[in-house]
C-alpha cells in the first residue's frame, strides 16, 4: 500500500537521491521516509502528510522515526506527559491510547482517501474495518466517562499539536475546541445516527494556518475541503459509498408526462429529409471508423460491400467457379511451394478444401507466388477461400500462366 501513497504525494520527486545536487538535508528526510518500514503508523503519518507542506512532511518524517524507534523502551520526550498525569502507569496508558488514536486517525484519513488508495486485498479492508470499529468504540465511550473532554483526546490533541510545526499552543487549543464541539455533536447524536465527525474532519476543518499565503502554498492535492450547498462530495460521503443516495435518482423537471410521451402516435409516413439522412450517416461514421480487429471482420466488411462471395457460397451467383477435376494440380502446387520455400500452409488449406469437396475453387494452374506475398505472409488471407475473381489479385498467386 505504501508505495502508492508516495506515488501520489508531491513529495515523490524528492524521494530520489539526486546524485549531484548540493542539497544534503532534503534527501535526508526523504531517505528516512522511504527507508522506514511499512508499518501502520508510518502509513498513517504518510496519509497525514497529505495535509501539510513538504518541509513539514520532512519534519514529520523524522519525528515519526524517532517515535517508532523509541516507543518500545521509553515514552517519547514530548509534551504528552506534561499535559496529562505524571504518574508512571498513567503515562504508559496515555502512550498506548495515543498510539491507538493515531492509528485510528490513520484509518479515518484512509477512508477519506479511499478512492485513491483503495486496497485490492481483502485483508487490508478487514484491518481497516477493525480499526474503524475500535475508533468507534472509543468514540462511543467518550461521552460516558467525563463531562469534559476525554483525556485520550486531549493527549491526542497535544500529540498532533506537537507534530504540526505551527504554534503549538494555538494548535492545541484549536484542536481542543474542535474536539469539544465534536463531543457535543456526538452527544446529541448519540442515540441516532453515529457521528460522522472524526479526527480527520477535525484536522481538515482546523484553522491552524499561520498566514493565508502559507495556506495556499501548502495545499496539497488531496486536501479535504467541505463544500456546502452542493451535491454529495467526497470526504463527507465516502465512508458510506454504498449507502449514498443515488444522484441519478430524485427530483426531476416535471415538464413531460410519461403517458403522453410513451403513447403510440399515428406514424406519418414521410421520406426522411436530408437532415435525418446526414444525421444517421454521422452516427454510423463514428462507430465504423474503428480499425478492423481481425481478418474476419475485414471479410465481413467486404461481404457487406459486396466485394466478397457470400458464405455459405451460392454457386448460382456467378459462373466463374470451375471445379477442379484432378489432384495433380495440387501436387504441382505443393512442389512449387515447398521448392521455393514458400508458405506451405497455403497448399494445405487448398488441399483440405479440395478433399472436402465442399468448395470448388478456381485457381488457374501453374501459378507462381506473387512478390508481395513473399514479403509479408499474411496468415489471414488463407481464410479467404470464397474470394471473387476481381479480388484474386490479392491472393498469393499471380496469374502468370494458365493451362
Amino acid at each position, binding site marked *: 500500500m505504501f508505495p502508492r501513497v*508516495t*506515488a*501520489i504525494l508531491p513529495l515523490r520527486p524528492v524521494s*530520489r537521491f539526486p*546524485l*549531484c545536487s548540493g542539497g544534503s538535508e532534503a534527501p535526508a528526510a526523504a531517505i528516512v521516509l522511504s527507508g522506514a518500514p511499512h508499518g501502520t503508523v508510518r502509513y498513517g503519518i504518510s496519509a497525514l502528510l497529505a495535509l501539510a507542506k513538504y518541509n513539514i512532511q520532512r519534519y514529520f518524517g523524522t519525528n515519526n522515526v524517532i517515535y517508532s524507534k523509541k516507543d518500545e523502551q521509553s515514552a517519547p520526550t514530548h509534551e504528552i506527559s506534561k499535559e496529562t498525569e505524571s504518574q508512571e502507569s498513567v503515562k504508559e496508558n496515555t502512550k498506548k491510547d495515543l498510539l491507538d488514536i493515531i492509528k485510528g486517525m490513520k484509518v479515518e484519513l484512509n477512508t477519506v482517501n479511499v*478512492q485513491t488508495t483503495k486496497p*485490492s486485498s481483502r485483508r487490508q479492508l478487514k484491518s481497516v474495518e477493525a480499526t474503524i470499529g475500535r475508533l468507534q468504540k472509543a468514540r462511543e465511550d467518550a461521552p460516558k466517562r467525563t463531562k469534559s473532554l476525554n483525556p485520550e483526546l486531549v493527549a491526542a490533541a497535544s500529540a498532533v499539536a506537537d507534530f504540526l510545526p505551527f504554534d503549538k499552543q494555538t494548535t492545541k487549543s484549536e484542536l481542543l475546541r474542535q474536539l469539544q464541539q465534536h463531543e457535543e455533536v456526538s452527544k446529541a447524536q448519540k442515540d441516532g445516527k453515529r457521528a460522522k465527525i472524526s479526527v480527520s474532519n477535525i484536522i481538515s476543518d482546523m484553522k491552524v494556518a499561520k498566514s493565508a499565503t502559507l495556506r495556499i502554498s501548502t*495545499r*496539497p492535492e488531496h486536501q*479535504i*475541503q*467541505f*463544500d456546502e450547498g*452542493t*451535491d*454529495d*462530495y*467526497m470526504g463527507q460521503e*465516502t465512508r458510506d459509498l454504498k449507502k*449514498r443516495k443515488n*444522484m*441519478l435518482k*430524485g427530483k*426531476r*423537471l*416535471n*415538464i*413531460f408526462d410519461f403517458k*403522453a*410521451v*410513451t403513447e403510440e402516435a399515428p406514424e406519418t409516413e414521410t421520406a426522411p*429529409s*436530408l*437532415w435525418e439522412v446526414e444525421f444517421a450517416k454521422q*452516427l454510423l*461514421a*463514428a462507430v465504423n*471508423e*474503428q*480499425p*478492423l*480487429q481481425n*481478418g*474476419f*471482420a475485414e471479410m*465481413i466488411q467486404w461481404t457487406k*460491400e*459486396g*466485394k466478397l462471395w*457470400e*458464405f*455459405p457460397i451460392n454457386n448460382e451467383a456467378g459462373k*466463374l467457379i470451375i471445379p477442379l477435376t484432378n489432384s495433380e494440380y495440387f501436387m504441382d502446387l505443393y512442389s512449387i511451394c515447398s521448392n521455393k520455400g514458400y508458405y506451405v500452409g497455403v497448399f494445405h488449406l487448398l488441399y483440405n478444401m479440395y478433399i472436402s469437396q465442399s468448395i470448388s475453387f478456381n485457381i488457374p494452374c501453374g501459378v507462381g507466388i506473387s512478390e*508481395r506475398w513473399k*514479403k509479408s505472409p499474411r496468415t489471414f488471407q488463407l*481464410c479467404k477461400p470464397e474470394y*471473387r*475473381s*476481381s479480388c484474386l489479385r490479392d491472393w498469393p498467386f499471380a496469374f502468370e500462366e494458365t493451362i
Partner: protein
Amino acid sequence: MAAVATGRWLRFRCKLWLTLMGQRAGPCGQAPSCRFYSGSATIPKVEGTNITGIEEVVIPKKKTWDKVAVLQALASTVNRDATAAPYAFQDDPFLIPTSSVESRSFLLAKKSGENAAKFIINSHPKYFQKDIAEPHIPCLMPEYFEPQIEDISEAALRERIKLKKVKASVDMFDQLLQAGTAISLETSNSLLDLLCYYGDKEPSTDYHFQQSEKSEELEEAAEENNKKSEKADHQFGVTWRTKNNAERIFALMPEKNSHSYCTMIRGMVKHRAPARALNLYTELLNNRLHADVYTFNALIEATALSVSEKLEDKWNNILELLKQMAAQKVKPNLQTFNTILKCLQRFHTFGRLPALQTFREMKAIGIEPSLATYHYIIQLFYHHENPSKGSSLIIYDIMNELTGQKFSPKDPDDDMFFQSAMKACSFLRDLELAYQVHGLLNTGDNWKFIGPDHRRNFYYSKFFSLVCLMEQIDVTLKWYKDLIPSVFFPRSQTLIDLLQALDVANRLEVIPQIWKDSKEYGHTFHNVLKEEILMLMARDKHSPELQVAFADCAADIKSTYESQDGRQTAPEWPANSLNYVAVLFLRAGRTQEAWKMLGLFKKHNKIPGNELLNEFMDSAKASNSPAQAIEIVKLASAFSLPICESLTQRVMADFAINQEQKEALGNLTSLTSDSDTDSDSDINEGK
C-alpha cells in the same frame, strides 16, 4: 481473471472450429460447444438432455443464415494478439508502424490512398467502365455525380438536389421561376433542406477523414478545442449570411408549411445564427404552425448559444421551450435531452442541478440515455473541477447503472464517453473504478465507442498511468505487456509513469528492457525520458550483474546523444545525464569509458557533480593509482570546484604519493584558491 479465462476458452474453441473446418466433420450437433448461433433466433436448450438422457430430443428448427453469420462466428473466436501490432496496421513488415506518430501517418496514408483512388475513379468515370467482376460489384464502379437531365424542369431540379449540387439547384430554381413554372411545395422544401443543411455552400466531398492532426501532447489541453473543431468539421467557416439563397427562396415561396419554417430554423442554428432562428420561431407561431421535435432541439441550442444573457435566464428559456413542447404535444427524443445537457456543460457549476433534473426527467419519461448523455454529465461534474476541492461521486452512480450494458450508436458524441469516464477515474485516482470502466469498454461491441485514434490513445494513457500509480508492479507489467503495443503506443509520459512505478516497487532491473521499448516506440531522442532512466539506474548501487546490465544500457543511451543523425538540433548533453552515465560506467568497472565521459564534461562545458568525483576517487583508490587521483583533483580545480580541497586532502591521506606529485597537488590547490580570490576580486571590482 475472467477475461483471461474467456480468452483461453475462445482460443480452444477456435481450434475446435478449425479442425471442424478442415475435416468437415459431420453435423455440428456432435460438439455443442462449437455451435454458433447468429442473429436473435432462439434455439431450444438441449444441454439438459445430455445429462439426464431421458428427455425428448428437441430438433432445432432450420434457420436461414445471415450472409455474414459464419464470418461473425469466426470473428468472435479471434483474440487480439498482444504481441503484434493491431490488425489494421499489419502490412509489409517494413511499413508496420512502431510509434503513435507512425501509426497516425499509416492510417492517414491508407485512407488518403483510398480517397485518391475514389476521387480519380469518380472524376474520370469513362476510363473505368470495364466491369470485370461477375456478379457486378457496385462499390468498385464509378459513381455518377453529374446531372443527366438537361432541360429546365422540376425533375431536373429534383435531380440536382439529390446530387447535392447547391449552386446548380439554385440556378435551376431561378430559371424555373423566371419561366413562370410553379414548383411544388415538396421540391421547394427539399431545396431548402439542401441549402439550410450546407449553409448555402457547396458541400465538401465526402472524402475527408476524421483524423485529428493535433499533437498528442496537447491532447488534454486541446480537448475542448478538439470538440469544437470536430463539430465545426464540415461547417467550418460557413456561417449564416443574411439574404442568402435560403432566405431568398424562403421569401419567394408562395406557400410555406411547417417543414419550410423548421428547416430554416435548423439551418440558422446549425450555422450560428441563433437570434434569427428564435425570431423565425416567433414567426412560425404567428402563422399558427407547429415546430417538430428536431426544430425544438435546434431552438434549445439556439437559446444556449445566444450571447449576453445570464445563465439563469438561459436555463429558464430552455425550460420555457420544453413547456411549449409539452403543451404542443411534441414528444421529446434523446437528442432533445442530449442537446440540453450539452448546452448545460457550458454553464459549469450552475449547470449541475439542472443537468441532474434533466437526466431524471428523461429517465422518468422512458427515454433511454445514450453514452453521450453520461459523457455530458461527467464533463459537467469533473471537467472544471479543482482537484483540491472534494469531488463529486456521481461517476459511481453512472458506472453502477452502466456496468454490463451494451450500446448502440445513438448520438454522434457517444464516442466521447469512455475518454471522459477514464479521465474522471484518473482524477479520482480510483483504480477499481477504472477497471469497471475498462470492463464496460470490453463488454460486447462497446469498444467501438472508444473514438478515433487520438481518443483511444488518451483513454489508454490515462488508464495505464493509473495502473502504474496504484497497481502492484507485477500486475502493472502484465498490463504493459498486454496493452503495448497491440492496443496503443505509449507516450513518453506513460513510460515515465511506468519507470516511477518500477522505482517504487524496487524493480529497477526491468529498466534496460523499458529503454529498449522506448527506442522502439520512437522516444529515442526524448531527453526527459532518457534522463529519468539514467537517474533511476545511477541513484543507488546494485549487484555487479545488474550494474553491468545498467552500464550496457547507459552506453546505448550515450550513443543516442552522440549520433543524433538527421536531426537539426546540436547534440546537447544535460549535465545530469553525463554524471549518471559516468557513474554507471564506473560502477560496472568500465573505468576507461568513465574517464572518457570526464572528457565530455569539458567538451560540453558541463560541471561534474561532487558525488561523481568522489566515486572516481574511490575507483582510483580501488585500483591504487595516485596518478588518476591527481588527475581528478586537476579536473576539479580546472572547474574551480569547492570540492577540490577535500579531494586533495583525500589524496594526501589515502594514497602513497611522491614528492613531485605532492608539489603538483600543492600547486593545484593554491591555483584554486588564487582563482577563487581572483574571481572574488573580480566581483568586487564589478561592484
